[in-house]
C-alpha cells in the first residue's frame, strides 16, 4: 500500500521564555506522519504533547527547525495563511470540548462550513451526515448545556470531521469521559479514519486511547523516547 507523507518534522525545537532563561519544551524532534495514520503522542504531563500538537495545528510556531504540514512550512506562514490551513485542512478536538454554548448542536457543527462559504443546502446535508457518524441526529436542536459530556465530545468530533479534513488533532479527548463513552468515541474516530482516510494524531496518556492506536510515539521531556508501529487486528 502506498502511503503519502503529510507531516514532516525536522530537527525541530520549541523554547518558551521563562524569566531570564528559556525553557525547552521540544528538543530536536524528527518525525514523519503518513496519511491515514491513527497515531498517539504518549507521555506524562509536561512532556510536550500539547506543544507539538499546537505546532502541527499551526496554532504555534517552532523556535528552530522545520515543521511541514500538508506542504506548508508552519514557521513561515503568516496569520492569514495559518488560518486558511486550519480552515481548509485541519480539525481540532479538545479535552474540554469547547463547544459554543449558546449555539445549537447543528450550528456548532455548521460553523466550519460557514467559514468555507459552503452553500446552505449543502451545509445542511453535510451537518446531518456528520451527526449521523457520531449518532446524534436526534440532538440537532439541542444546545451543549443540555448534553452529557460524552455527547458534547461527539458533537466536537462531528464539528472536526464535518468538512472531511485531511488531519484531525485531538488533545486528550477522553480525559473527561468515562470508559463507555471513551470507547464509543474512539470507535467512531477509528471508523472515520478507515472510511475517510483521515489522519488522526492524539495527545494522550489514557490506556484506552493507546489500545486503539496503530502508532505510538512516546515523548519524554520534549524528546522522542520510543516510536513504535503496531499491527493489531481490532
Amino acid at each position: 500500500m502506498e502511503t503519502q507523507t503529510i507531516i514532516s518534522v525536522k530537527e525541530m525545537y520549541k523554547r518558551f521564555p521563562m524569566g531570564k532563561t528559556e525553557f525547552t519544551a521540544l528538543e530536536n524532534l524528527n518525525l514523519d506522519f503518513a496519511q491515514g495514520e491513527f497515531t498517539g503522542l504518549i507521555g506524562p504531563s509536561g512532556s510536550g504533547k500539547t506543544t507539538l500538537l499546537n505546532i502541527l495545528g499551526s496554532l504555534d510556531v517552532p523556535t528552530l527547525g522545520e515543521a511541514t504540514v500538508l506542504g506548508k512550512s508552519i514557521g513561515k506562514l503568516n496569520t492569514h495563511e495559518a488560518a486558511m490551513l486550519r480552515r481548509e485542512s485541519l480539525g481540532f478536538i479538545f479535552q474540554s470540548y469547547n463547544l459554543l454554548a449558546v449555539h445549537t448542536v447543528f450550528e456548532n457543527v455548521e460553523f466550519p462550513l460557514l467559514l468555507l462559504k459552503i452553500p446552505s443546502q449543502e451545509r445542511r446535508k453535510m451537518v446531518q451526515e456528520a451527526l449521523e457518524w457520531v449518532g446524534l441526529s436526534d440532538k440537532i436542536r439541542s444546545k451543549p448545556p443540555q448534553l452529557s459530556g460524552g455527547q458534547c465530545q461527539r458533537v466536537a468530533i462531528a464539528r472536526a470531521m464535518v468538512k472531511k479534513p485531511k488531519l484531525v488533532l485531538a488533545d486528550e479527548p477522553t480525559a473527561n469521559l468515562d470508559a463507555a463513552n471513551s470507547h464509543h468515541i474512539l470507535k467512531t474516530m477509528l471508523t472515520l479514519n478507515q472510511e475517510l482516510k483521515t489522519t488522526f494524531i492524539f495527545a494522550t496518556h489514557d490506556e484506552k486511547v493507546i489500545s486503539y492506536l496503530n502508532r505510538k510515539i512516546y515523548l519524554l521531556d520534549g524528546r522522542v523516547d520510543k516510536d513504535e508501529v503496531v499491527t493489531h487486528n481490532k
Partner: protein
Amino acid sequence: MIKFLIKGLLRDKSRSRLPIMVVAIGVTLTVFMHAYITGFMGDTIEMNARFTTGHVKVMTRAYAEDASLLPNDLALMQIEELLDSLRSLYPDMSWSPRIQFGGLIDVPDSAGETRSQGTAIGWGLELIANQDELNRLDLQKALRSGHLPRKSGDALLSHTFAGKLGIAPGDEFTLISSTMNGGMAMYNFRLSGTVHFGVEIMDRGSIIADLKDVQLALEMENAAGEITGFSNTGFYHNNQAEKLSDSFNSKFKTDDEFSPVMLSLSQQGNMGQYVQMSEVWSAYVSLIFIFAMSLVLWNAGLLGGLRRYGEVGIRLAIGESKGHVYRSMIAESVFIGIAGSVTGTAIGLGFAWLLQTYGLDISGMMQGASLMMPTIIKARITPTDFYIGFFPGVISTVIGTLLSGIGIYRRQTAKLFKELEA
C-alpha cells in the same frame, strides 16, 4: 456567518443584555441631565430676562453704568419717540418701557397715622395699555388675592409682604420715594391684589404698578429708566441679542452720557458668565460621559473578553482569522452601542418629558436665596437631546471594545488555549 454572529449575540445575555443596559443607563443619565440643566439654566436666564434684564435692554449710558442703583435721575427721556423707532427698526422684538425704583410702603390707620411700614422694590410696568407685560410675568397666575390693576391708582404687592403689612385688597397705602429730580415723592395707591411668583427676591417685598402711575409718582413724564426688549421667539439667543445691540448702538450711541445704549442680557451684570456656562457645559458633560463610559465598557469588555477566550480560541482553531474575529466583535459593539443608545435616549427623554411637564418644586431649598432662580425646576427638551447621549453611547461602546479586543488580538493563538484550559 452574519446570522450566526447575530444569533450568538442575541442568545448570550452577558454579551448583549448587560452591555446594552450599561450603555442605556449612561445615555439615559446624559440625556436627562442635559435636558434638566438646559431647562434649569434656560429658565434662570428667561426669568432674569423677564424680571430684570430683558433679552436686551435700552438705557442711557449713564444709567447703564450704575444700573444696579436704579438711578432714575439718569432715565431715558422722550421714550415715546424712542419706542416708535425701536418698534419700526426691530419689528421681531416687543418693547416695553419700565421704571424700577426703591421706596417705602406706608400703611395708615383710620386716623392717617402710620400703622405699618416696609421697604419695597418697585416696578412700573405697562399693565393697562397692553397685555405684553401681564403675559410675560404671568401675573394672572401669580395673583393670590384680589385682581390685577385695572385703573389708575391700582397696585399689586407681594403676597407675604402684604400679609406682614397687614393690608388686604381694597386697602389704601402710600408709596414714599424720591422723584426724578431728587425731590420727595408721595403717592397713594389702592391695593388691587397680591402676587406670588415663586421667585425669592420678587416675593420678598415688591410693589408693581402701572407705568403711568409710577411716572406720575416719580415725576417722570414720558421718561423711563429702561426699555426692555424681548424676542418674539420666546427664548434668549445670545448671538442674536448681541448682534441686535451692536446694530442699535452703532445708530444711537453718542458721546453724550444721556444717549441711549442697548445691552444684551449677557452684557448686564454677571449674566454673561452664566450664558457662557450654559453654552459650554453640555460639551463638557458629553466628554466626561464618553470618557467614563469608555472606561466602564472597556472593563466590561475585558471581562467579557476573558470570558470569551474559549469562544475566540475555538473560532481561531476552526480557521477564522484574528482580524475577522476582532472585526466581528467591533460590529457587535456597534450593534450594542446603537441598541443601548436608542433605549437610553428614549428613557432619558421620557424622564425629561416628565420633568418638563410636571416640574419639581424646590422652593423649600431656595429660602433666602438672593439670586434670581426658578423655584420650580423644569427640564427643557431641545433637539440636542436626541443626539447628545446617542453618539457618545455608540462611540464609547466601540472604543471600549477596541481597547479590550486588542488583548485578544495580540495574544498568541496557542496562548489563548492555555488560558482556556486553565
